[in-house]
């Protein structure tokens, strides 16, 4: 978890790619989760956090509005995602957990990172 700083824009990149940045000597590709989930742009001065993940030996940073807490959940408590889930979420969700009084969607990292390479506005 880190606060992204000095993001370098990547021209011609897919819209989800917010840019690349240097995280302790590693070049990290930052994906904007708002854009990935079609949630609309973030206010320019809104705080932003990044979740660093390692995927197929490359580093990615998922840009999010804020980070809640770290929870340990049992795998078998995960329930399949309902068919009527918002299509934007459905695409990237792995399943659903029922927490006290609220539902929580679990994202599937593979799908989150599966951005279409060709989908660049030519």
């Amino acid at each position, binding site marked *: 978890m880190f606060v992204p700083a*000095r993001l370098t824009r*990547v021209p*011609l*990149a897919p819209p989800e790619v917010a840019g*690349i940045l240097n995280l302790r*000597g590693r070049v990290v590709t930052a994906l904007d989760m708002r854009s990935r989930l079609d949630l609309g742009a973030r206010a320019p001065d809104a705080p932003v956090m990044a979740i660093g993940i390692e995927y197929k030996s490359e580093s990615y940073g998922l840009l999010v509005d804020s980070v809640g807490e770290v929870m340990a959940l049992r795998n078998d408590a995960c329930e399949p995602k309902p068919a009527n889930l918002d299509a934007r979420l459905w695409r990237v969700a792995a399943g659903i957990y029922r927490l006290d009084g609220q539902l929580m969607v679990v994202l599937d990292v593979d799908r989150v*990172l599966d951005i279409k390479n060709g989908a660049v506005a030519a």
Partner: protein
Amino acid sequence: MDDLLKEFLVETNESLDTVDVELVRFEQEPDNAEILGNIFRLVHTIKGTCGFLGLPRLEALAHAAESLMSKFRDGMPVSGDAVTLVLFAIDRIKEILGELEANQREPAGSDTDLIRQLDEMRKSGATPAPRAAARRTVGTLVRQTLERPLEPGEASLDELERAFRDAPGPAPSKPAVAVEDKPLERPDDKLASQSIRVSIDTLEHLMTMVSELVLTRNQLLDIMRRHDDSEFKVPLQRLSNVTAELQDGVMRTRMQPIGNAWQKLPRIVRDLSAELGKDIELEMHGADTELDRQVLERIKDPLTHMVRNSADHGLESRAERIAAGKPEKGIIRLSAYHEGGHIIIGVADDGRGLDIGRIRHQVLASGLATESELEKMSEAQIQKFIFTPGFSTARRVTSVSGRGVGMDVVRSHIDQIGGTIDVQSAQGKGLNFTIKIPLTLAIISALIVESGGERFAIPQLSVLELVRVHGKSEHRIERIKDAAVLRLRNKLLPLVRMSSLLQLDGDRAIPDRGFIVVLRVGAQTFGVVVDCVFHTEEIVVKPMASKLRHIAMFSGNTILGDGSVILIVDPNGVSQATGDWAASGTGAHTDHEAGARAVAENTISLLVFRAGTPEPKAVPLSLVTRLEEIDCTKIELSNGRYMVQYRGQLMPLIGASDGVRIKRDGAQPLLVFSDGSRSMGLVVDEIVDIVEDRLDIHVGSDRSGVLGSAVVRGQATEIIDVGHFLPLAYADWFRGQDLRATARRERTLLLVDDSAFFRNMLSPVLKAAGYEVTAVESAHEALATLKKGERFDALVTDIDMPGMDGFALAEAVRGEQQFSEMPIIALSSTATPELIERGRQVGLHDYVAKFDRQSLIAALKTCLFRPA
């Protein structure tokens, strides 16, 4: 894959490469027992390991080869045939290994044919065999130790040794198979224990970590510069030194001897010398000179190509050599050594050297330079033309080299890794190529620029120069409507804005002032407009993330000393993105309508202008050599004709139509057409635009000088017939020196093109060049005409035609006995290497771009007036 099998494959492949080299050496020095011992041991090891791993097919083959070689050891004379046979066997082993690697088991099939031949060779080898039997008792089992614990799945050396001994020879007679000649066995035992195998991944990872360490150190040094007095100063200095040494050390682990790239060459040269009937000796010096693995991989092919070239074209035939008083045996010499941060590789031969006369001829014929330009050049400059794309002096296409790709391809390979190539030649004495390449690609020097508020790194290798333009500077940005060009020392460079290329902002106009980075990629030169230029910096190249790798504009990224990440621009990608217009010598199509020019195959670039009448006129852009604006005061009237002094010569000016008037003051726009040393200026009122459009021409103009009219950008436009104006300027425009020297009678051509426009455009041009032209509109018609018995000296055909295309026509024509020798030249608007290769296959003599009149005429000339 089974670990043991993997290890086996890696080792066997290495051994086989060595065997190749050793065998060739062996053929030259049959008495050298050491070489024989080496080969024997290698094959023996392969056989033994195969037996251990249960690979019967390989084992049988290796066994047969080994038996034959053991005969050599016993004193059987070594013949070239025998070596060839062993080489065959080794090739077969390689094939089987290849499949083994792919499928993890031996392919089905039998090698009895080869084994029989090997056996026969062995038996016919006359020399007594009994000695072999006697030697079988020699040697005891020496206990062998390995200097590390065994890994799971590995067999101990003793086990292997036992496997060697126990491996039964499948051939009925079992000669001295398992003879262990201990003193010969392991001369490099010591060497082996001093080196270990490390996987490339480990090394790459180490390299990455060191790169990061270097960056961190740079950051620390940066901070240190701002705080003068600090107790960190001394330790940081030490850290800095250690880091530099570490970097150096790790870089060294990536180094490999260049001999690895040469390994296959002795075999290639040997095969070539057999194929060409020449005696060739390959000398190699400095094979242990080291360079970066990555660079090594990329020079392998060019080197092979150059050695082939030397063998095929450089060295003369045996008879020629004797006649020239040279030793019968030709020598190709490879050498390598370090100099500064570079490695210098030499490829030399003592053959005939470059034929300056022929290069001149070819340069003139293909219009690369004019005669007067050639006059001023030194021999060395003329020799450099062999690196120009499409240039080949090879008279014949042989199976070895000379397929029209030549030194230009070699150069582009070397360019890509930031190297340079130079040639020295002495006619009759030999040829010497010198290649200079950087030792590594992992750290490069880059120019940092800013565009659209972002910083980018441009590899310094591609940067030719930096030009700053402002209102008063000597270099100005000029415009042909939307397209901007830079006039730089009499050359027009197409310009493109980096920020529009990268779609950083909506503003597409090119400003009048700014910095222009002049880039050269291959043969293309163009200018990239940036907002700001900072400095050059040594940067550590990091690969792009896989999600971003599809963006052709960038080749990687890097972290600067201040910790920010910047993108490295790939000049190749930029050149491709700008390629369409850079190649045609005009400006960028920045307007969005141009986005619709997807149907590029059927569109051509037209230069639209006005002359005499308000209606636009147009001419295919590729026919125009240059666009000029001449100061009217410089126009002179001489002998009733308008002339202007242009590049040291008088250039006649001709009106593009009756109504056009030469201006009295200001600047007079001209279209300049050149051919060889002559130029002519076509006077126009105004140059309007360059458009890329479909040409649907409505032929049928009666007026001379006009081919017809077409709709260009929704406007009726007259298409000008350039062929009409050229003879007006010089009555003998095409009939000049070119033909007087060569043509005895009128040559006949058959021109095939489905488009009336091209038929009408090319026929007069070809006629003017002294050919009698018959034009037909389809391949079928062409075949019918040929079958009627009409004779033609050459066939010029379009490739893209409905129904039967040019390739099919060429094939059909080649199929007919009586036409099999007739030269065929193809015209096409697209010329990809694949198409050209396909053209070669169906027997095309040449492949010329549709509007490239000069090349067409040059190609015809080389086909028809070949020096005997």
